[in-house]
């Protein structure tokens, strides 16, 4: 399996290739950066224009919604930077290119994570800038709890994102076409996280909190930092601080499911 050093060597090599690609296609990099800005800019502008007309969304004002978005953006863009290619597994399975990962002498998930792709740190950089702004804008108290908790919440968010995409990837071993599932998951993750979970009906709230726990990426932590007294399933005010724990548990479960799926995939390989 190789020593830790050789594993790190592969990671370093993968990042070197990414960086070189970025430097080689500068114009392309800037165009995609413009896209990243447009994507998040349009989302925030639509929220801003809406809350300009309707100042309260279930008790949340635009400043608070901006912070909610920033927390999600931080976790989501960190996930994209390191683990984006996990979401491509269903495509690999469909196209039959997945099999090549199985014959190489490295862990399959490790290989997938280090596939050279065009995920650059531009989105994360933008997320950090927006998060710093939104923290100030929403008057969030920056104390030692905040400074300690935010990195852990981001870690939790990354693990939640990763756990769900790993589960979808594993489902694709059984059902090759998982487009609908991917759409549903993507929509829940990208669109439903923009608003406080308390606006949804009970079933969707439970889904967002305890099944695909996206609410731990931003909603529950935001409830804690903004001192919102909320009806949206918040059992205790500090529930959001459990994000890394929830992320860890969900990732462990997803990884177990992935191992089972991988064995089964190998078993049926033709």
């Amino acid at each position, binding site marked *: 399996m190789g020593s830790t050093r050789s594993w790190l060597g592969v990671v370093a090599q993968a990042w070197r290739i990414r960086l070189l690609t970025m430097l080689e296609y500068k114009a392309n990099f800037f165009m995609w950066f413009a896209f990243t800005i447009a994507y998040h800019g349009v989302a925030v502008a639509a929220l801003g224009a809406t809350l300009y007309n309707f100042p309260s969304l279930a008790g949340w004002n635009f400043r608070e919604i901006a912070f909610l978005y920033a927390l999600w953006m931080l976790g989501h863009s960190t996930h994209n930077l390191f683990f984006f290619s996990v979401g491509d597994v269903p495509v690999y399975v469909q196209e039959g290119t997945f099999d090549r990962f199985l014959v190489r002498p490295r862990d399959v998930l490790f290989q997938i994570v280090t596939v050279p792709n065009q995920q650059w740190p531009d989105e994360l950089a933008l997320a950090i800038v927006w998060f710093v702004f939104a923290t100030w804008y929403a008057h969030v108290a920056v104390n030692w709890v905040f400074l300690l908790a935010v990195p852990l919440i981001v870690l939790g968010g990354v693990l939640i994102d990763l756990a769900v995409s790993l589960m979808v990837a594993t489902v694709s071993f059984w059902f090759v076409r998982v487009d609908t599932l991917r759409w549903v998951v993507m929509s829940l993750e990208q669109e*439903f996280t923009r608003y406080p979970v308390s606006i949804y009906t009970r079933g969707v709230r439970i889904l967002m909190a305890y099944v695909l726990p996206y609410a731990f990426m931003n909603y529950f932590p935001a409830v804690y930092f903004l001192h919102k007294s909320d009806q949206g399933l918040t059992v205790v005010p500090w529930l959001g601080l459990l994000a890394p724990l929830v992320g860890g548990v969900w990732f462990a479960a997803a990884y177990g499911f992935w191992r089972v799926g991988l064995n089964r995939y190998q078993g049926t390989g033709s």
Partner: protein
Amino acid sequence: MIHLAPYLQFASKAFQREATYRVEVLSEIGSLVLRVYLIRALWTALYAHNPAPPDLPLHAIITYSTVALLLSLIFEVDGTRQLREKLRLGTIATDLLKPISIPGFLFSDGLGMTLLHAMTVIPSLLIALLLVHVDRPAGAGAAAAFLAAFALGYAVNFLLNFCMNCVAFWTLETFALQLVVRWLSDLLSGAIIPLAFFPGVFQSVVLHLPFAAVYSTPLLIYLGLLRGQQVGHALLEQLAWLLAFAALAALAWSRGRNRVVVQGG
């Protein structure tokens, strides 16, 4: 004299081609359920805690958003995207030798694809109706004007896409740029929120940008927010954008085809 027969064939071929991707079409309808649910949850929550705008009660905004979503099933089909691929792969060279008009081909191919996606509007609407109440058009006149505005919007949308894809004549790599424009136009066309939600001066600018001709105008007519003379003016404005973009598209096409650079290999 242009013969229409081949173009009808192109449209019918595109229709059949799209029809083979049933799973995609189904997942499109599936994701629509979530979006309609989101529309209901969001606007219900917003109207519960804030005074409603005088001319836009809750049922009107839900109708607006749902009809916009159904329109997007049609407007998001981009037949002209093939132009970018043809330029990238170099197959444009053989297409230029054929005795057909390529813009005409792209339009009829896109129309064929659109017709298939238009068929999903009915089941999508039925599913949406399980979750929300959608108002009927504000009268028979409004319905007829809505159809006219929709047709004009479709043409403007086609020409906008065509012009965007013509950029590939000059830069070859245009995908990111196109996505930027697509995202901005979703916001500025009124596909996500009514343009009346934009503040002050910004609103009056946005209302008269070409993007508004695609979603906003048909939707405002549907809801009866434009009446009488306003409808006529709005349709004329759409027509003006249509002609302006037709001229721009013709210019881009004639300049572009003269400088086709086919990538080697």
